[in-house]
């Protein structure tokens, strides 16, 4: 039974910070905006307006993605463990209330695996939908997104990713959707569990580990779908910076032009929803046609890696 993702509903605030301002505020290693723009392709990062709330972005995206569907489960993939909501365990009840769901619909936060949480949530949803006894019409709502501006000190991941505020949502079902789920793979390198307490040497090794592990999970995801690198039309990237993808493409012997980096200068990194934002933008811009295969890639601090292969389906 084939499982598919719906089109992606995105919510990105209109306000922007300059990447260099975010770096300076975090007291990261000094770097000027020209270097950030020219080499890393990092220019701006979205931020919530003063009177906007992150939970509204997430649940608005969820409501749009659901339409008239009633999911049997909601998975919220998030990176940050302290959020501007959830202090009173209110996220589940609030999500059910705002999305019009019954009280017994489970709502799980999926986290502690860094920015791979949303793609992992999609894999969990796939397994749920094909479990023994599952009803064919069941749907799972996936929510994603974090408020990077809540903690300016954690907003910049050296060297360099600048994390912004945004949310995404989509629905997964059997035999219905825009992107057929073909395969996925996860990896980890837990030497880097110290996260923001990593030494400079650990940060340097983390960069090298990211390149090799991204290559590994890409190949593993393709193998799980019985595909090869040459079968991939697009990589929808984790949007840390352009240098990372030059390194990955060199190691993969993959054309950098097939990595969808159009959003990188304007949005930078948005935690677990980078690849979904790229997928949505590419589709909305008419760059995707049925039959194309896209690799969605995420990297998480800790460190974790996830790649998922989807195939674009014709519009119903």
């Amino acid at each position, binding site marked *: 039974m084939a499982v598919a993702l719906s089109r992606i509903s995105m919510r990105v605030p209109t306000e922007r910070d300059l990447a260099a301002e975010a770096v300076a*505020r975090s*007291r990261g290693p000094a770097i000027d905006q020209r270097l950030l723009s020219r080499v890393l392709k990092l220019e701006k990062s979205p931020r919530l307006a003063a009177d906007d709330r992150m939970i509204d972005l997430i649940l608005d995206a969820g409501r749009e993605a659901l339409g008239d569907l009633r999911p049997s489960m909601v998975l*919220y993939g*998030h990176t940050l*463990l*302290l959020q*501007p*909501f*959830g*202090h*009173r*365990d209110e*996220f*589940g009840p609030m999500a059910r209330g705002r999305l019009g769901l019954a*009280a*017994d619909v*489970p*709502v*799980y*936060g*999926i*986290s*502690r*695996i*860094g920015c791979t949480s949303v793609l*992992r949530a999609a894999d*969990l949803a796939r*397994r*749920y939908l094909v*479990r023994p006894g599952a009803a064919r019409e069941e749907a799972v709502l996936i929510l994603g997104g974090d408020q990077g501006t*809540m*903690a*300016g*000190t*954690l907003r910049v991941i050296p060297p360099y990713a600048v994390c912004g505020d945004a949310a995404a949502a989509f629905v997964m079902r059997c035999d219905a959707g825009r992107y057929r789920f073909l395969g996925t793979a*996860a990896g*980890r390198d*837990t*030497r*880097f*569990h*110290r*996260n*923001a*307490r990593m030494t400079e040497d650990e940060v340097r090794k983390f960069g090298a580990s990211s390149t090799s592990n991204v290559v590994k999970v890409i190949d593993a995801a393709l193998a799980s779908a019985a595909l090869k690198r040459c079968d991939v039309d697009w990589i929808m990237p984790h949007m840390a910076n352009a240098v990372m993808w030059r390194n990955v493409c060199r190691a993969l012997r993959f054309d950098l032009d097939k990595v969808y980096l159009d959003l990188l200068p304007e949005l930078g990194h948005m935690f677990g929803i980078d690849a979904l934002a790229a997928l949505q933008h590419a589709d909305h811009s008419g760059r995707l046609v049925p039959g194309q295969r896209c690799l969605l890639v995420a990297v998480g*601090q*800790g*460190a*974790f890696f996830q790649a998922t292969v989807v195939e674009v389906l014709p519009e119903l």
Partner: protein
Amino acid sequence: MKTESELTVEAMAVAVEDGPPYLPVGEFPTDPEKLWEVLDEWAERAPAELRQVIERMGTGWAAVVIEFLSSVAAHIDIPKPVLRMLSVRADGTEIAEAALAALGAPRQPQPLLLVQATADRDTTAMLLPRLVHELAWPVTEELGVTHLGCSGGTAILDMLAWWVDPRVGATVIIVDQPQFVAADRLPERLSAVALRFGATGPLEVLGCGTEGSSGNVDYRFTGPGACGGWLDLHRALGNPRLRGGDRIVVQSRADDQAGWGLIRCKSVIGGRPLWWRPPVRVTGSR
């Protein structure tokens, strides 16, 4: 009741930390634009115990803590003078790791799942990859589950019913350690329950729920927080009184929510299980 699976509890272990170090945080800045300007001043004026932790953990940690405190102040109605923060232990001990170490490595590769509503105790590091790294167990998949609140210890059973292949099993660690609390609501202890699920254990998971009734049962183990009744079930296993066929409800609850898990003793336990150990007590250096 929700779902039935072939899942059993094969073993469990408990770790507790009595009198956990909750520190007053003093008057901290809430304007992010002024964070770095006032950081040193905050550290100098901080209560003595907190000042020692700042010196140990460094400026970067202090900056993250101030931002977290600012967010907490904005979203939780606890006045700064009575706000308390759980401190990182000097020896870095985590009750989650202590409970898992007491449980021991699984016989075969299997997933590891961490159920915890709050952020990691060290806000600058990551607990789950640390557990995977330091335990060096054969972990096939690691995952954290959040936003289940105080019913997490039993609500997770519903997810396990479809996520876990009973032939492979899974290790689940449930952690209760509130990070920010009011001075008059300090927990007397932190707790962690490590559960090994599989197909061959003496305790069969029959179902779970957050509403409704679990029906007639022989024993009902109840407690606050996500670990809730698992702690009393563990205690009962150490003082054997459960019999084959007994139906047990494990409840986890908070003020306004509750969850329950229904369990049946598959066979006469007839004595303390071989794997049973008293709770690990995390003490000493803070």
